[in-house]
């Protein structure tokens, strides 16, 4: 079971499960009120130079409010987990928040096209990149959530994606097959936007989960932003509904529409018009600078951003679109 080949990509985080265990051992398991403002949570739990990861898939259930707050607080020199990242990546590049990235999916916005700002930043050479795939990053978070230093998979093999990764190819001692070992990824901090949480951090998510169950478990610190707080009694009424438990969580921030302008399943659809505004503004760096100033740096919080872009009326429209209510009677 020798190492057949090693990717030459840099490993930005420590895969040692005993180091992570030593951290988790000291983490409080007390069920105490962890609700606070998002500004306070970012200030307390996200530090320059650290490695962070975000929940959600693309612009769906993504903690956009938290991204804006990180820009307002001028976070710098961070490592970022580019796992299915789209509008979040675009914002973080605008703030030049990170200087190293594990790349699963970056710079694009799926069917919406590619972000000029993100591409410019990634083409400067200022950002160290290690290549992975979306599943590779899932598997790395899975390994960390399990508490083991790696997981074997059958992707990456034979490609340059492997060559630019930090995976290692070995021969399986049971079958002789070649496997790509994926090192555990323990982010310093994970930020996850969810539907509901109690003040302790018992969380409920509806709809697709992407890798957020494992992200919450793998991250040394976890910030939850939620559409709404619910009672602990409600959580305990139906524990089958809970997605992850309180002892993983450090901060709970109630941020309604915290995923705007992305989609929040069962709540509101994405604001495609506003996302196009972003892409358009990015084409000219000067225009984009003003755009960021108005939409992020001059805003006190996420609500001010929303008010500048349509406020409650827009939110109700997006809710109507989400629920396909405009189609009632047509199908």
């Amino acid at each position: 079971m020798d190492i057949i080949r090693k990717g030459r990509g840099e490993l930005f985080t420590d895969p040692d499960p005993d180091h992570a265990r030593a951290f988790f051992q000291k983490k409080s398991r007390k069920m105490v009120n962890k609700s606070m403002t998002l500004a306070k949570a970012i200030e307390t739990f996200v530090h320059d130079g650290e490695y962070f990861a975000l929940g959600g898939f693309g612009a769906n259930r993504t903690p956009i409010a938290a991204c804006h707050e990180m820009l307002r607080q001028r976070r710098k020199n961070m490592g970022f987990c580019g796992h299915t990242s789209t509008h979040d990546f675009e914002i973080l590049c605008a703030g030049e928040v990170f200087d190293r990235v594990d790349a699963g999916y970056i710079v694009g916005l799926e069917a919406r096209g590619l972000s000029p700002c993100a591409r410019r930043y990634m083409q400067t050479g200022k950002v160290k990149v290690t290549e992975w795939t979306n599943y590779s990053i899932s598997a790395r978070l899975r390994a960390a959530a399990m508490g083991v230093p790696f997981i074997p998979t059958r992707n990456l093999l034979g490609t340059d994606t492997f060559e630019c990764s930090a995976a290692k190819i070995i021969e399986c001692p049971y079958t002789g097959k070649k496997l790509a070992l994926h090192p555990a990824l323990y982010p310093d901090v994970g930020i996850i936007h969810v539907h509901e949480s109690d003040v302790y951090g018992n969380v409920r998510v509806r709809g697709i989960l992407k890798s957020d169950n494992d992200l919450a478990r793998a991250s040394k610190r976890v910030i939850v932003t939620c559409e709404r707080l619910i009672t602990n009694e409600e959580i305990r009424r139906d524990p089958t509904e809970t997605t992850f438990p309180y002892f993983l969580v450090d901060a709970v921030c109630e941020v309604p529409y915290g995923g705007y302008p992305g989609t929040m399943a069962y709540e509101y659809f994405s604001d495609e018009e506003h996302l196009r505004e972003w892409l358009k503004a990015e084409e000219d760096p000067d225009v984009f600078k003003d755009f960021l100033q108005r939409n992020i740096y001059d805003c006190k919080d996420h609500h001010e951003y929303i008010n500048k872009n349509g406020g409650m009326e827009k939110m109700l429209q997006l809710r109507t679109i989400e629920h396909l209510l405009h189609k009632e009677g047509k199908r």
Partner: protein
Amino acid sequence: MTTTYNAMELMICVASRELEDGSTLAVGTGAPCAAAMLAQRLNSPNLSILFEAGSVSPQLPEMPISVGDSRASHKAVMVSTMGAIMETCQRGYVDYTFLGGAQIDMYGNLNSTFIGGTHQKPKVRFPGSGGANDFGSFCWKMMVLTVQDARRFVEKCEFITTPGWLSGGNSRYEAGLPEGTGPYKVFTNMAVMDFEPESRRMRIISINPGYSVKDVQDNCGFELLKAPKITETLPPTEIELKILREEVDPHRYVIGR
């Protein structure tokens, strides 16, 4: 009577015919998703679509913008995790995938990472693998739907993001990729290609109406093999176009490109 259609409509209709009823498909947004929706509405009501964000067998009311948006899990039989979807592929349950890329080579390898410069300072950066390397590694038959263009069909990808037949022959399986998987067909505006079973090199098997073998070769950066018998691609039917235009993509998000 002559039916008119554009290149995108043609590619979607032709590709959709591959998706037989009762098969499973892992797919992204855009043209491949349109092909899947068309297949479901015509001959393959039991076609099961899986999206990497976690949705299984949705009934798509319209084109999703993101494979993670609520359209993509509309009336799904299950929503789950990326791990669950990718493991379903890795376990051998998924028959097809459709992929694309900035570059494709004669062995069906795909580049969606960068072009020009170096990896750490690229001239043009693309999204990277996303789920492409995973789907291309795990799904039984990988298909590509793209425009025929010599800058896209290159002798050698600058970067292999997603494995095709690698360097041909048995090299894919020697690398350890799951037995029996690999590139299957390529659909362009001009032709349909498969891969010659020994060398695993791309070859023309069918020419689309209005094009010649020469047209295809002229718009390809490497030498294409030719099947013993090259057929003419059946153009989109009235019913295919009607459903595609009226039900699958009424806003012309994809077919209007």
